[in-house]
């Protein structure tokens, strides 16, 4: 936090000592730089956020006027079985998806630093899937993991394993999404690669002289040094998971084989058996399929509170974000 508030007092004191005219003109220039962004934040973020809070206490659909119902929407959350399921699904993703991706990304970046030859080639190769549009990647994975004809189960059968139903099984649908997320791990890998390469070589040399093996060097040198990046990845990973929508929506629609996205409403979101209903997917369904807009806003406020709490964890470690002193 401290790093975000540098040099404030002296700047203000200097500014105060200047004549009023110059200060006003400087302020106007600064404002001209910031005006579009300020309008954007106000119109497309603060105003809708305020509206969402107000709407969450009302009941209405696309055709009716909001009617004040007090805390009804929040009470309704308590006995909404689909909400409970979507919270469970999103929590599952937070607990499994986020750590698996972080461990995978650290593993890949460590592997890359160990390669004497072709490190650049492999870096590009491992990164490429992160470029594939999520919808395209999801289609590819639904096809790869198709229970009857997909090559993955075909391959598993040849080595004597009966493959699961993947996206068509309530138990395996979320693990299939994790596999998809692991495939597109490139961004995270590049971030960890930069962190791992930033660990001073002298530390490793000292440890080698003390007879530490590779795993000990990783445990006692690499991991502590990149720990702020791990925290950053964990927090942004949780945020990403809280808004996880595209892959879950498309996987459910395509795997069910009879998707009807037309009209913006898929009756196959959550397929199979609601196992891919993430929290935002349920929010979208409540709002735009059932037109329960007041209730959808209450769900949105719930999401806001959780996401804000997670964001604050990151901001308290704002040092990681600043870059000012580096």
């Amino acid at each position, binding site marked *: 936090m401290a790093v*975000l*508030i540098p040099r*404030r007092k002296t700047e203000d004191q200097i500014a105060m000592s200047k004549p009023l005219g110059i200060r006003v003109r400087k302020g106007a*220039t*600064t404002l*001209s*730089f*910031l005006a*579009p*962004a300020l*309008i*954007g*934040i106000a119109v*497309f973020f603060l105003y*809708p*956020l305020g509206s*969402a809070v107000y*709407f969450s206490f009302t009941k209405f659909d696309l055709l009716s006027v909001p009617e004040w119902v007090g805390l009804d929407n929040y009470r309704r959350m308590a006995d909404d079985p689909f909400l409970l399921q979507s919270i469970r699904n999103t929590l599952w993703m937070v607990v499994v998806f986020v750590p698996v991706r972080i461990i995978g990304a650290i593993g890949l970046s460590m*592997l*890359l630093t*160990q390669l004497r030859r*072709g490190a650049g080639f*492999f870096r590009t*190769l*491992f990164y490429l*899937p992160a470029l*594939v*549009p999520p*919808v395209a990647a999801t*289609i*590819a994975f639904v*096809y*790869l993991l198709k229970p009857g*004809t997909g*090559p993955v189960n*075909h391959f598993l059968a040849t080595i004597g394993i009966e493959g699961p139903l993947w996206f068509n099984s309530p138990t395996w649908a979320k693990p299939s999404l994790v596999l998809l997320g692991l495939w597109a791990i490139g961004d995270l890998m590049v*971030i960890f690669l*930069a*962190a791992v390469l930033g660990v001073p070589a002298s530390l490793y040399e000292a440890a080698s002289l003390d007879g530490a093996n590779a795993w000990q060097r990783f445990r006692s040198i690499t991991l502590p040094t990149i720990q*702020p*990046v791990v925290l*950053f990845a964990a927090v942004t990973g949780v*945020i990403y998971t809280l*808004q996880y929508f*595209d892959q879950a*929506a*498309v996987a459910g*629609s*395509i795997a069910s084989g009879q*998707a*009807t*996205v037309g009209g*913006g409403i898929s009756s196959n979101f959550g397929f199979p058996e609601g196992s891919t209903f993430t929290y935002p997917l349920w*929010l*979208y369904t409540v709002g*735009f399929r059932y037109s329960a807009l007041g209730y959808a806003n209450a769900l949105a406020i719930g999401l806001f509170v959780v*996401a804000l709490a997670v964001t604050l964890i*990151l901001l308290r470690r704002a040092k990681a*974000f600043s*870059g000012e002193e580096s």
Partner: protein
Amino acid sequence: MTAVLDTPPVLSAPAPDRRIKRQRRLAWIAKHSIAIAIGVMFLTPVVYLVLLSLMTSDQALTADYWPNSWHPENYVRVFEVTPLPHYLLNTVVYAVSSTVLVLLSSVPAAYALAKLKFRGSNALFLLVICVMMLPPQVVTVPLYLMWANAGLTGSLWPLIIPALFGDAFCIFLLRQFLLTIPSEYLDAARVDGCGEWRTLLRVVLPMARPGIAAAGLFQFFYCWNDYYGPLLYTSENESSWTLSLGLASFHSVHHVDWNLVTAATVLAMAPLIVIFFFAQRAFVQGITLTGFKG
């Protein structure tokens, strides 16, 4: 004398040296084998998709990996029998206009946050981070109502107009980059009598080109891949659909055969991979910039 001094280490070294060398070579082989295995796994989905897209529609329904006969004409047919050209056009319009507008509106804001001192700059930066971090679904319903009241849902406008007013992630990324430009350059320009706008245009912009390239690439890729925005605003009007939306509904709505769906899927990812190879450095630098110092 020198010969005597040189020999002892050479004489005592060989035995452990050879063992270490063999160990190292084994480790080398192991590490590269793992890398190759993972590389193959990473490539498989794309290769499989390409192979499927070259099969006949009947063979695409089987468990075959390898096309019995090759049908590159699938890539022509998909343009003829589906609205793909239309989706492609909408996607290009959305991605290009949004990228240009976002850069125009975000660069000045990022410059002010990085290099100008004003009261509340820290608070504003924290606000930008909050906007960047909070899930878009939080404000979805009010925003949708806003655009519906304006009569613009069903068109691409709700996706393009906000770009006029900056994007939080873009501002954040550009600010991080601009911080790396030494303030001495700016001070020199100011001493020469440049106003802030001229300093930005003449001095900062040329130096910030890599950062701007990275931010522009990210925005372009984001728009190209965007599924949530088009689903929310354009799904009611098929003539405004983008590639992502079209791909997800090809099979169901248009009853397009799978070999053509996969051909369209390959076409959707191809431009991004081509762009990446031309702009790899700006990209990697941009990703590293999104963080934090270890």
